[in-house]
């Protein structure tokens, strides 16, 4: 047993972090919210060059066939910064869903980043995220998978997310329940890592703010109430992270505990990110309640993401069921 990232994986994460630090991700997220996908798509291209979009695509189709652990490494950074667009959908769920259903060309295009995809899987995932920015829009309903004409966009409380209810279109497969479930698992794993990253981004912003913002003649970070709240956020994140890696390992090796481990990771990551969001708002005060403040980029995203790819109640129920009646999973 060696429960730690390889040096290569660390470097991969650091490279994505560096790439995104140099890019103006907050600016791109704001443009995305205003309907201008340009800067965001430029970041996607840079990420594609770094291999992020190819991770989950099989090697046979031009992808990297990487492990779910690599996906987690990438997604934590994508949430950390926070990159707009249908990340869990395009880089995690769809490559799994379509591995056997789509042509090599489609998979290769997903891998190269030339094609961005999104999907809806009602009722778990009733809306397709950012279908207006995607070249591939997939609907999976009752085991049937089809290409869908994208519908009308609905606003999310996260202005950088637009949601689309889909109609059935050209059928890709009629009986793909197993692939759909596998895709949901992979997307859920990505969402957990995205939430973890978002929590980290929020905490870092808080620490920075608490060191510089002064009230009552000293930095707000010198007050015990602020210290202890931020310490709790760090504790939440630090103990959520190993659960995500364990879930990635279990998913990658198809362990019978994979569903349990995945749901446990999602519960912990979403709880930790929610605590980070609540705390960030409290530590920032009114400035945190504005669009101008970067923490707003994470606040609503955490709320939105933590209720998609399964709700907290749903994932807790999965864990409980797995503990008491082993071998059940969500969406099975």
């Amino acid at each position, binding site marked *: 047993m060696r429960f730690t990232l390889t040096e290569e994986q660390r470097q991969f994460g650091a490279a994505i972090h560096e790439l995104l630090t140099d890019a103006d991700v907050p600016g791109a997220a704001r443009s995305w919210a205003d309907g201008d996908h340009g800067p965001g798509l430029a970041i996607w291209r840079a990420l594609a060059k770094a291999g992020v979009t190819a991770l989950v695509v099989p090697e046979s189709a031009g992808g990297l066939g990487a492990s779910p652990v690599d996906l987690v490494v990438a997604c934590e950074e994508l949430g950390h910064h926070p990159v707009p667009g249908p990340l869990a959908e395009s880089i995690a769920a769809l490559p799994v869903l379509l591995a056997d259903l789509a042509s090599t060309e489609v998979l290769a295009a997903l891998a190269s980043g030339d094609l961005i995809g999104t999907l809806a899987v009602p*009722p*778990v*995932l*009733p*809306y397709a995220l950012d279908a207006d920015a995607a070249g591939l829009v997939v609907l999976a309903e009752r085991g049937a998978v089809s290409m869908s004409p994208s519908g009308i966009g*609905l*606003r*999310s*409380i*996260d*202005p950088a*997310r637009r*949601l689309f209810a889909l109609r059935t279109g050209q059928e890709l497969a009629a009986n793909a329940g197993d692939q759909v479930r596998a895709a949901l698992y992979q997307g859920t794993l990505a969402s957990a890592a995205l939430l973890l990253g978002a929590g980290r981004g929020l905490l870092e912003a808080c620490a920075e703010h608490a060191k510089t913002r*002064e*009230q*009552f003649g000293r930095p707000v970070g010198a*007050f015990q*109430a*602020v210290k202890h709240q931020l310490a709790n956020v760090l504790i939440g994140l630090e103990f959520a992270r190993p659960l995500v890696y364990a879930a990635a390992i279990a998913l990658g090796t198809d362990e019978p505990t994979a569903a349990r481990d995945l749901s446990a990771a999602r519960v912990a990551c979403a709880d930790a990110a929610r605590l980070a969001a*609540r705390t960030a*708002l*409290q530590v920032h*005060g*009114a400035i*945190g*309640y*504005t*669009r*101008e403040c970067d923490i*707003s980029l994470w*606040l*609503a995203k955490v*709320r*939105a993401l933590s*209720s*998609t790819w399964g*709700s*907290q*109640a*749903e*994932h*807790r*129920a*999965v864990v409980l069921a797995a503990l008491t009646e082993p071998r059940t999973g*969500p969406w099975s």
Partner: protein
Amino acid sequence: MDLDPDPVDEAFRAEVRAGLASILPGQPLPSVNTEEGFAAHREFERKLADARLAVVSWPERYGGRDAPLSQWLVFEEEYYRAGGPVRVGQNGLFLLAPTLFAHGSEEQLDRILPPMATAEQVWAQAWSEPGAGSDLAAIRSSAVSTEEGWLLSGQKTWSSRAAFADRAFGLFRSDPAAERHRGLTYLMFDLRAPGVTVRPIAQLDGEPGFAEIFLDEVFVPDADVIGEPGAGWKVAMSTASHERGLSLRSPGRFMAATDRLVRLWQSGSDRPREGRQAHGERIAPEAPQANRAIAGREAIGDRVADAWIAARAYQLHTHGTVASLADGGTLGAESSLGKVFWSELDVSLCETALDLLGPHAELADRYWADSYLFALAGPIYAGTNEIQRSVIAERLLGLPR
């Protein structure tokens, strides 16, 4: 000790209910944070004033009914029950007016209250500054005394309603040599006066719910000082207690929201029960099937129960406060207890509803999503909950500063 409804209050309730039913708009009003919506809300306030429902607890001469506190609570219950629109004039009605009643001159009362009651004049608050948030005593905006009055300069921020309001009130440093709580003066000013620049700030929901106000030698006559010059802190603190306490968050709001939460839990829809029409809400209720898909929702039941228990506790606690005030009691540091309690209750009940809505929770422009974003501000404004907890510990428990 009893909870029996007073017949006079109940007669008043029936009148309020009927009055509201006749004037509440059939459709949700556009957002108060748009020019159109602001105008629509102002227009609705005028109708409320015409029905003598705008300021029931004020003296008749200012547009009120001299109603006791108990009837003000009845009004609030009915208003939220009916789903009435946001009170566009709330800064004036609930913050400035109590200050004027306590510290204003006869002339000020006569001049300011009637157009406030009809929303002919809508007020913004101008407390915070970039360097003075929780630490309000760090105010640096100045009021320089001249022969004719005062010249205000500096920057205010997080001024709610300032994007479209007419006038504003706040604290200014009138004695540059004095520090912190001393040498501050409570002043009112015109948001359209020369030297005033208002820059709206987009809130989390994207709307300009508050603004920055830049002041450059803005002239204010002596008549617009409230209380004594230099005594502004004391004057403002009486308002702060009102802001934290009863007036800004009456229990009616939480009872109505909790009622809605229970319906959402029970049926998957929070549409009003038959016979009750929600008026004036911007937002459509959730679809009936919305929460049916949420596995594991049973475990959320406890949180629904807790939300109701807390809302009921807040309502009962308020009944107790009303009785104590009627006996000549005053509202002091106790209002900090309520501030922390209602603001956390509000966030928690919205979060419970969103968790029940699962993947539909993130849809914007819905009742619960909007309420949630609004509730998130509660633990921050009117003195952060951290400040309130320190006040509680020091003033109510006697812990050392």
